[in-house]
């Protein structure tokens, strides 16, 4: 029990700063999208979720290879369950912190990379020796190969995602419910601590080393009412109802959400230590004084909205959606605690400052900008820029179709500001198609890219 708790805390405190924030934005069940490095050329659920104007745009099923449904082929799960039989997880070093082979980095990488697809190339898991040199006036921490995981600047991760989108459309209106998940974690090592951990510099006497933390996580669902309207129609063409011309026009949309938060927690505070002279002449002073807020009851409430616009002109379309404008949730019953280091007991102490306080949280404004150009001869080029509260990710992809065959490729800049690449292909036979996509990603606690093969079946 103790070990599990400690490991969990370690994962949260020591590893979370290193997490790539790109995971959820790029994760897709569609091998076609993965083969284009994450860009979506179709007017799929992602576009509607983040741009209400797209609710007024017709689906182009069959037009550009957009499927009605996509079913992933989970090749990765087969390998995973062979390596980790579910009945033996309690003794599996992957999941058992009591095992000497347990590696928290490996477990975190598994969480960041759900093993749905087949890993062609795994990112290496840090498995190196960590060396401490301790003397009366000396402390050196050599993290070995793991040093590369210590970021060079302030770091954090965040996501404001919409997990589901259920509802019905009546005329221009859409009534539904969406789930939301927002987290934002920011860590800032001061330069002295970064120097010690990353550069293996010696701890200096009479010095302080600090890390500042601000983390919030909240989730819930939001009943929504949206309205979308086609403002203009394009000029008639011959044939007037051709696929390219049928959707021409400007579309606008808006949505109002009533947020119902299920739970949230927030932690803020500095941590660190101060050493004297000599360093171990006296016990180093631990600096830890944080505040934690956590909801006692669900249903934090708030109102916010989305707006969006899309313009379609023949083979070209562009859209912009802005989400969660003014979204602030009020939590009527929140516990506020102080967690601090108690030098008298040489331990952490927790005191409740307010057992039932009202607090507020905000959802960050996110946006999705997308563009696509159908160039004829079966070629479609697309791009999108997505920001879900933190770093912006950019995807550019292209698909070339020859009859039943398709070839795809793409590049992306992920939230870690690293370039990623994708390629793939597929074949369609009647109402069904099978696609494969290979993509690189940095969704691991490593500086090295991994490569994954995704496969899926499409129903047209």
């Amino acid at each position, binding site marked *: 029990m103790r070990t599990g708790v*400690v490991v969990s805390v370690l994962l949260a405190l020591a590893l979370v700063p290193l997490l790539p924030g790109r995971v959820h934005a790029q994760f897709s069940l569609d091998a076609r999208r993965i083969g284009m490095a994450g860009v979506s050329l179709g007017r799929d659920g992602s576009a509607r979720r983040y741009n209400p104007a797209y609710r007024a745009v017709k689906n182009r099923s069959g037009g550009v290879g957009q499927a009605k449904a996509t079913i992933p082929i989970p090749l990765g799960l087969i390998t995973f369950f062979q390596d980790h039989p579910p009945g033996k997880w309690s003794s599996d070093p992957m999941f058992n912190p009591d095992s000497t082979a347990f590696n*928290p980095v490996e477990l975190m990488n598994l969480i960041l990379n759900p093993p749905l697809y087949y890993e062609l190339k795994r990112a290496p898991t840090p498995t*190196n020796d960590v*060396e401490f040199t301790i*003397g009366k006036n000396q402390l050196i921490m050599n993290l070995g190969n793991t040093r590369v995981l210590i970021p060079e600047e302030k770091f954090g991760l965040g996501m404001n995602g919409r997990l589901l989108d259920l509802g019905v459309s009546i005329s221009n209106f859409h009534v539904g419910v969406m789930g939301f998940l927002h987290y934002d974690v920011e860590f800032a090592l001061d330069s002295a601590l970064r120097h010690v951990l990353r550069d293996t510099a010696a701890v200096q006497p009479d010095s302080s080393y600090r890390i500042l933390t601000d983390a919030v996580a909240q989730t819930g669902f939001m009943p929504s009412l949206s309205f979308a309207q086609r403002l203009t129609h394009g000029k008639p063409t011959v044939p007037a109802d051709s696929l390219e011309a049928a959707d021409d026009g400007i579309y606008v949309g808006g949505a109002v959400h009533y947020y119902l938060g299920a739970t949230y927690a927030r932690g803020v505070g500095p941590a660190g230590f101060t050493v004297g002279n000599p360093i171990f002449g006296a016990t*180093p002073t631990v600096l830890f004084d944080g505040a934690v807020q956590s909801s006692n009851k669900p249903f934090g409430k708030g109102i916010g909205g989305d707006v969006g616009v899309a313009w379609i002109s023949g083979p070209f379309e562009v859209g912009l959606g802005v989400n969660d404008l003014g979204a602030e949730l009020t939590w009527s019953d929140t516990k506020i605690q102080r967690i601090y280091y108690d030098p008298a007991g040489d331990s952490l102490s927790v005191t409740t400052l307010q057992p039932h306080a009202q607090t507020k949280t905000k959802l960050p404004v996110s946006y999705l900008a997308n563009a696509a150009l159908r160039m004829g001869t079966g070629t479609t080029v697309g791009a999108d820029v997505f920001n879900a509260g933190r770093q912006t990710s950019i995807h550019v992809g292209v698909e070339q179709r020859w009859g039943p065959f398709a070839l795809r490729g793409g590049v992306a800049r992920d939230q870690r500001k690293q370039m990623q690449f994708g390629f793939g292909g597929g074949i369609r036979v009647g109402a069904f198609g099978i696609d494969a996509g290979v993509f690189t990603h940095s969704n691991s606690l490593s500086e090295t890219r991994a490569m994954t093969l995704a496969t899926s079946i499409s129903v047209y």
Partner: protein
Amino acid sequence: MKFFAVALLAVVAACGQGKAIFNVDAYSFLQGTGKDTIPYNIPPGLSGTASTVQKISLPPGFGSSIVDTVRISSGTANLENAGGTGTIGFQLFFASDSAATYTAPVALNIPATAVNGAQTVAVPITGDLSGVDSLFQHETVYIRIAATATNTGATFVIGNGVLKALVIRIVLQDKVL
């Protein structure tokens, strides 16, 4: 200290599978306290032993660890002989408390070095301490350094054994929590 040490070990656990290596400069804790010097004064034809005991504090949490190896990776003592002829050797004892170091078996034996007249002789102190691995699972270990002198001459063998370096290298398998 406990909290700080646990935080230190947390860094180890966060860095993935591997070994945690602690190079403890034991000499730095002895230096300047007088405990780094063992005086000897042995009459002709006799032998004698003098020793010093030092407490070494280790980070807590080692109790659940698997100690891979413990060794003195580097160490040096100077035999600052003021006069007389004989031999002087060092022996290291480890125990969980101070008194037990006097009854514990020898953990490391440094062969005797000959001294003759006023001179300073450097004696390397290195070696494996695998026989006392389990002691390093505790938060506290006591070390007793004994100098055993034998007088083979006609005058007193007199001088000091002065410790100049002593680094204990403790290698743990990565299970420190």
